[in-house]
């Protein structure tokens, strides 16, 4: 498949635009602080790319990817923090973290090879809860909910990076991961994964060993998720608390992958931008713009009657909860998810085979997802 030069051009332009954001931001005082949230986007993009390999390529639903991020963050923290004797450097700790992540991936993947579809989903979900619980409960090792700090910031050739340095380093890592994901996708490993997603039985009958392929997918996913966790920890200089890696984060990662377009690397990047951006940029801006209202005046409901009562009731209620923009965040987020799915069920940038390719009015879904769908059936 020849990649058109136009596409390369567009990609390079996009990379350049993203790369100069921090500089532009500094010189064009719009009051937009987006380079910092963008760094979060990069981390979530890595998490999403990892999950994409497992769920997007291989078609295995994973609801516990945050657990791998937690493992990553804590392995990184324990191996680098000054309150432990190990005190590795940033890059060696990162390597260790990814290895530990891969090992955890094997540990989860191996016993659950036979478990399929939604059963696998709950196994991964359970794994997530177990990891979280273990991190909280083994507090003599992990400091429980205290979090481990300080952690070394990212370094490059011996210099500590902060602000824009981190931005570019993380962006670079994302690019490396994207390249890696693409390379795997377009090699026999990726073909094996996708063939399992498309039709596990047929791929078996063609001599693909699904166990091997799935284990590799699990390990790759886990080690990328661990990388994302370690990078976050390093950026925040703290492992955070185990609660920061709970089910909601796995869900967020899953939403990034599906909203972006299952199995599509570009889709995942866009998904991360939209999902994290929505939270870190749009919702924050929204809060700033609306401000909040204060006062819910003393309730005079007891004295009021009839229509007046009803009006007062609604007014008090509105002032109690509805006027505060922070109270709307879940709703906005949820509504955005539902609407995105209704209007673009195949994601924003579906993998391959968009509707136009479908011969005779396919069922409307992207084939990739439709088939993944079939495959996930128990």
């Amino acid at each position, binding site marked *: 498949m020849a990649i058109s030069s136009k596409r390369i051009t567009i990609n390079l332009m996009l990379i350049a635009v993203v790369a100069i954001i921090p500089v532009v931001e500094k010189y064009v005082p719009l009051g937009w602080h987006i380079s910092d949230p963008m760094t979060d986007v990069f981390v979530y993009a890595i998490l999403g790319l990892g999950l994409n390999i497992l769920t997007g390529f291989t078609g295995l639903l994973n609801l516990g990817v945050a657990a791998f991020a937690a493992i990553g963050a804590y392995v990184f923290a324990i191996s680098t923090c000054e309150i432990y004797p190990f005190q590795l450097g940033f890059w060696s700790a990162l390597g260790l973290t990814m290895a530990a992540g891969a090992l955890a991936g094997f540990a989860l993947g191996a016993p659950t090879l036979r478990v399929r579809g*939604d059963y696998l989903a709950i196994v991964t979900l359970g794994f997530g809860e177990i990891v979280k619980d273990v991190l909280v409960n083994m507090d003599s090792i992990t400091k429980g909910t205290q979090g481990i700090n300080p952690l070394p910031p990212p370094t490059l050739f011996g210099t500590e990076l902060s602000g824009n340095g981190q931005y570019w380093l993380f962006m670079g890592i994302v690019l490396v991961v994207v390249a890696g994901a693409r390379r795997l996708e377009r090699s026999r490993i990726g073909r094996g994964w996708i063939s399992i997603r498309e039709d596990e039985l047929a791929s078996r009958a063609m001599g693909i060993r699904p166990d091997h392929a799935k284990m590799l997918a699990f390990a790759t996913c886990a080690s990328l998720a661990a990388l994302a966790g370690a990078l976050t920890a390093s950026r925040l200089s703290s492992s955070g608390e185990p609660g920061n890696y709970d089910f909601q984060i796995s869900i967020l990662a*899953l939403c990034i992958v599906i909203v972006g377009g299952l199995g599509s690397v570009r889709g995942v990047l866009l998904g991360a931008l939209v999902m994290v951006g929505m939270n870190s940029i749009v919702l924050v801006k929204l809060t700033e713009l609306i401000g909040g209202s204060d006062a819910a005046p003393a309730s005079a409901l007891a004295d009021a009657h009839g229509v007046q009562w009803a009006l007062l009731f609604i007014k008090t209620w509105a002032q109690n909860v509805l006027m505060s923009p922070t109270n709307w965040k879940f*709703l906005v987020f949820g*509504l955005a998810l539902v609407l995105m*799915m209704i209007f673009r069920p195949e994601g924003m940038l579906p993998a391959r085979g968009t509707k136009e390719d479908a011969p005779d009015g396919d069922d409307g879904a992207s084939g990739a997802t439709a088939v993944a769908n079939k495959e996930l059936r128990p």
Partner: protein
Amino acid sequence: MQRTVAAAEFLAASALSQADAVGAFARDGLLSSQEVFTQQLVTGLSNGMIIALIAIGYTMVYGIIELINFAHGDLCMLGAYFALTVVGALGVDHWVGAGGLMGLVMVLVGTAAFCGSLNWSINRLAYRPLRKASKLSLLVSAIGASFILVNLGLFWGGLPMDVFANGTSSAAPKAFPALVSAAPAAQIGDVIYSRTDLLVLCVTLPLMVALTYLVRFTKLGKAMRAVAQNPTGASLMGIDVERVIGATFFIGGSLGGFATVVYSLYNQTVSFQMGYRMGMDAFIAAVLGGIGNLPGAVLGGILIGVIRSMSDGYLEARWTNTVVFGILILILVFRPSGLLGAKLREKV
């Protein structure tokens, strides 16, 4: 008998390596170890039956459109808020005697109807447009719906009513009035079988029987089973598939409604975040029993309840989640499609 008890104690002690601590409980305490065990069993069964009732709603929806309905737990949460509103608005907690019983039944049925209709509407708005999309898109839509429901619960909690503490802190947990007192209905030794335990039994058992009847013997039930097996085939046979799916959502939701009232009466606390755990437990129960399988959901629910109870009682409470999920994973390793789930066989 003495010997059995001693053996049980020994086993518990050795498994925990906390021989002295456990021994101390049994010796100094007011309760004998048998009483403790029985009490834990009672608690586990009651909790388990509530979970089972929610799990049935889960598993029914799964059975028919293969959707892990993430919004189910949060639907139950809204049901609890609805029930609380009804109780608060009508002052049901002040009704006494037969009136009280009537009130209870009314709240149960009303909440069931509310949850059923809500579930039906969610299906209509958030899931039906995605009928032909991939299952994962549907899943994300369900996640979105769950977020919306959570937020609605947050809003609801701010209603300026007495039962919601005049709505001054919408996010705080709310007390649910004790329509059924927690006083013992029966007491054997120090084992308490409270009236709320009895309530759980009195609501869940008939519902399970009724549901079994409905699915097995009614026309709707047959249609549901047909759609679950083969939607296309069912529609060719003249079954209105969408109507059957809608009905399933309604029935699943209303079972959730019954469950949530029982849950609220049992725990006497509701909060806008309780849906997560309710949904999670039900999901585990459904999967443990074999998702899509009704008796499986009941078995799974009761097992989860009892395991939780025993783990709280004999291990440390902080490890209970780990124990539950550990057992779940173990069972799935040896029985990949749940306890009662049919063995997967792909048609080639």
